[in-house]
């Protein structure tokens, strides 16, 4: 099936199988491998991207459902070589170790702050419920998100 998707500001036209998931389309068709696959039950959140500005687990969506949509992946977050404030904050606050959950974490938390620019710790932690990290105990992820919120987001 033919689809037209705007991915990281670039118009894409592709012919995909009906069963292709959005995450596989992004990774295998477009070569955007920054988006990760960490489970097969939509628990881990490593595949989180933005669809029309909202966070979405790209394993829960067929590529054909993205037809006509704007998709942003981790590769599209930095602008003109400048890191997004959330990327910078994860770096500054040691919000990552192995880095596998990190793209999903960053996409989720940027969307979280778009919805709620001034979350308290509890709200940040609840906002991260759909993303699993096995390295950090979430401590520094929460700190990284709070730091961006405190600085006034993006």
């Amino acid at each position, binding site marked *: 099936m033919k689809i037209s998707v705007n991915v990281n500001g670039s118009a894409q036209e592709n012919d995909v199988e009906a069963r292709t998931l959005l995450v596989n389309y992004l990774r295998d068709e477009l070569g955007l491998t920054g988006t990760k696959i960490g489970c097969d039950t939509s628990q881990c959140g490593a595949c989180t991207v933005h669809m029309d500005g909202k966070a979405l687990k790209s394993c829960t969506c067929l590529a054909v459902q993205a037809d006509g949509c704007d998709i942003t992946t981790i590769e599209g977050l930095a602008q003109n070589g400048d890191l997004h404030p959330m990327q910078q904050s994860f770096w500054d606050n040691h919000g990552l170790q192995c880095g596998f959950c990190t793209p999903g974490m960053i996409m989720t938390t940027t969307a979280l702050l778009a919805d709620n620019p001034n979350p308290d710790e509890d709200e940040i932690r609840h906002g991260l419920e759909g993303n699993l990290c096995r*390295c950090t105990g979430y401590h520094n992820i929460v700190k990284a998100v709070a730091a961006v919120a405190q600085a006034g987001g993006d």
Partner: protein
Amino acid sequence: MAVVGKAVKRKEDPRLITGEARYLEDIKLPGMTHIAILRSPHAHANIVSINSERAAAVPGVIGVFTGQDFMDVNPLPCPWPAGGVDNNLNTPRALEVEKVTHVGAGVAVVVAEDRATAQDAVELVDVEWEVLPAVTDAEEATFDGAPQLHENAPNNVCMEWDCGDQSGTDAALGSSDVVVKQRLRNQRLIPTPMETRGCIAQHEAVNGEYTIWMTSQAPHVHRLLFTAFIFGVPENKVRVISPQIGGGFGAKIFMYPEYVLTTALSKKVGRPVKWVETRSENYIATTHGRDHVTDVEVGANRDGTITGLKVRTYANLGGTLSTVAPGIPTTLYGRMLSGAYKLPNIYCHVTGVYTNTGMVDAYRGAGRPEATYVVERAVDLVASELGMDPVEVRRKNFVPADSFPYEPSGNLLNGLSYDSGNYDKALDMALEMTGYEDFRAEQAAARAEGRYLGIGLSTYIEICGIAPSAWMFGEGWGAALWESANVRMHITGDVVVTSGSQSHGQGHETSIAQLVADELGVSMDQVHVQHSDTLGTPFGYGTYGSRSTAVGGVAVWRSLQRIKEKARAIAAHEFEANVDDVEYVVNDEGVGVVQVKGSPDQSKVVGEFMGIATSAAGGWDLPGDMEPFLDETAYYDPPDCTYPFGTHICIVEVDAETGNVGIKRYIAVDDVGKVINPMIVDGQVHGGIAQGVAQALWEGAQYDENGQLVSGSMMDYAIPRADLLPSFELGRTETPSPNNPLGVKGAGETGTIAATPAVVNAVVDALSHLNVRHIDMPLTPSRVWETIQSRSNGGNS
């Protein structure tokens, strides 16, 4: 500007936060094929027949293979047959041939042009099974009449192992004022790194060389196992590359059937072969951890002095043995049972048992969390029995700060000794941060209102920086455990470090660079740490056991000393001075210079273009017969292990109505020796605490009576979420290890080792007024609620 001891941001992060890092799943090779593995749905069954005709006929399928096709490939090795038993080691093959002993064992494989085709086709492979009765509990498996897994292991016993002083301990328990007995279950855990396992293998027929990309914490060890044990080819025929790795926690140390299968298939089909584990496969086919049933007896006198500790453990090893499975519940468990305490008598007897479950091997902490759980629960049981404060009992029995090096009684450590420590100091700091006395008052007030607050301590030690090779050999380990490193300063002054250890999230590229920057006087940007490719790095045993800095870091340090010696000799030649008069100093700007002592005007920068680096690399004018280049390799085999310690304190509130345990505060004071990067060390502690807390409260692999893993997905296995955990309050004391020149001990496992008993002790403390003495993990709401209900009805436990 010294950088050691500073929270330097990680060099590896830019590629990770932008999605540029290449993990195994991100690698594609031209002509690459994909596989799907048919796994046993039964825990215990004979393979009667396999018919692959329907699968082979699917368009896009290149071939279908069974275990019979790999009889020329050796079974996987088990190089740590601890316990001295080696005639009943049962390890997996690339694919099982006659029978399976756990759900998930591979019996057939489909190779296809793409993964979806392979997955579709593997469902068409027909297997006729003869299903056998299964047993999943380690103790029950030893009973007469239990299903027998392997002919060479009667009563399913793999090994019997003991340590310490049996008769002395029995005598001590017999003459103690009190003896407390308790059965403790340390439940099975599933490591669950966020990245599953995977392997890509390419075979070049023209020269017989394999290149294997794999999710490995120990690429050199994997190559060693492939070459010497499995395929019987020399080292130069196998190159192992570990790309960016998404966490391991022990599970990626080992050789697995899928790696052997993928590699063997690359030769069979003559094209690259890729296998990436699904999360469902990860739960059933990647190693698990823990799974002990332990009876503990602890004796004490009325004043709180512990007189003896007797431990009897059944360790579940799974249906077949993983790479170092027997070493975990023996050496890394029994030898740690003195904990932070001067115990006069200790004895431990372990039975390692085969059951119809997945393989069990090292998971973060590996034996040491199990030992710490036994010791720290035992101390609390003594306190409860004697009506003493758990803090007081701990202080009473601590190894005193002036007793180091300390050798535990009964030759428990088989010749090794605790290196250094000040256990009271860490405890004092943690109590101060907690406000311990205030909490006890708050707890009493809360109880009066019907609220159940509790506090739990864990004053742990651990064994890190494993280990002296000769000592490990004596423990049955069939290799060594030294590390090596090469340091080269290039003509421009930039420094490349190659190391045999491997980083899968720990930040070696940063902390090793800090060490180099300070020692040589170069900038962090000038240091490049390379690892994880057997082509181009010196041999190393890999990253686990909190050993990368304490062993691998020292190998780097030794190389740096040799670089500095050579730089001095070159400078002496250029200055026409005696080498003894030339010193290597790092100036106030952090720049390394060689200079004539007392004549700083006669000096030269080392790490810059046209500096000593250039003199050495150019080689135009070197003293005597000196070889060009600053390029040094060093090996380091530690004389002893390192022994971090600390105090963790957890405060919980148990909901009396629901049994839910909420963590109100978590305080951790760790002493990991000298700290190179406090930000990285704190991060290791945070993650470790989360995993340790999760064992206490939520995680647990569950098998049903038929050996089906019912906690086999992220929906069913309780990985902690952000909303379940608090922010952690960390403190640190710093007692250098005298066992290595860096004074470092190791920080990767402290959190996991310390946290679990702290949380359980806190919950038991919260319910102590109900006469609760112990609850087995995980302390789920239902289990806690049932305990409260039974006590409220007048029961005891």
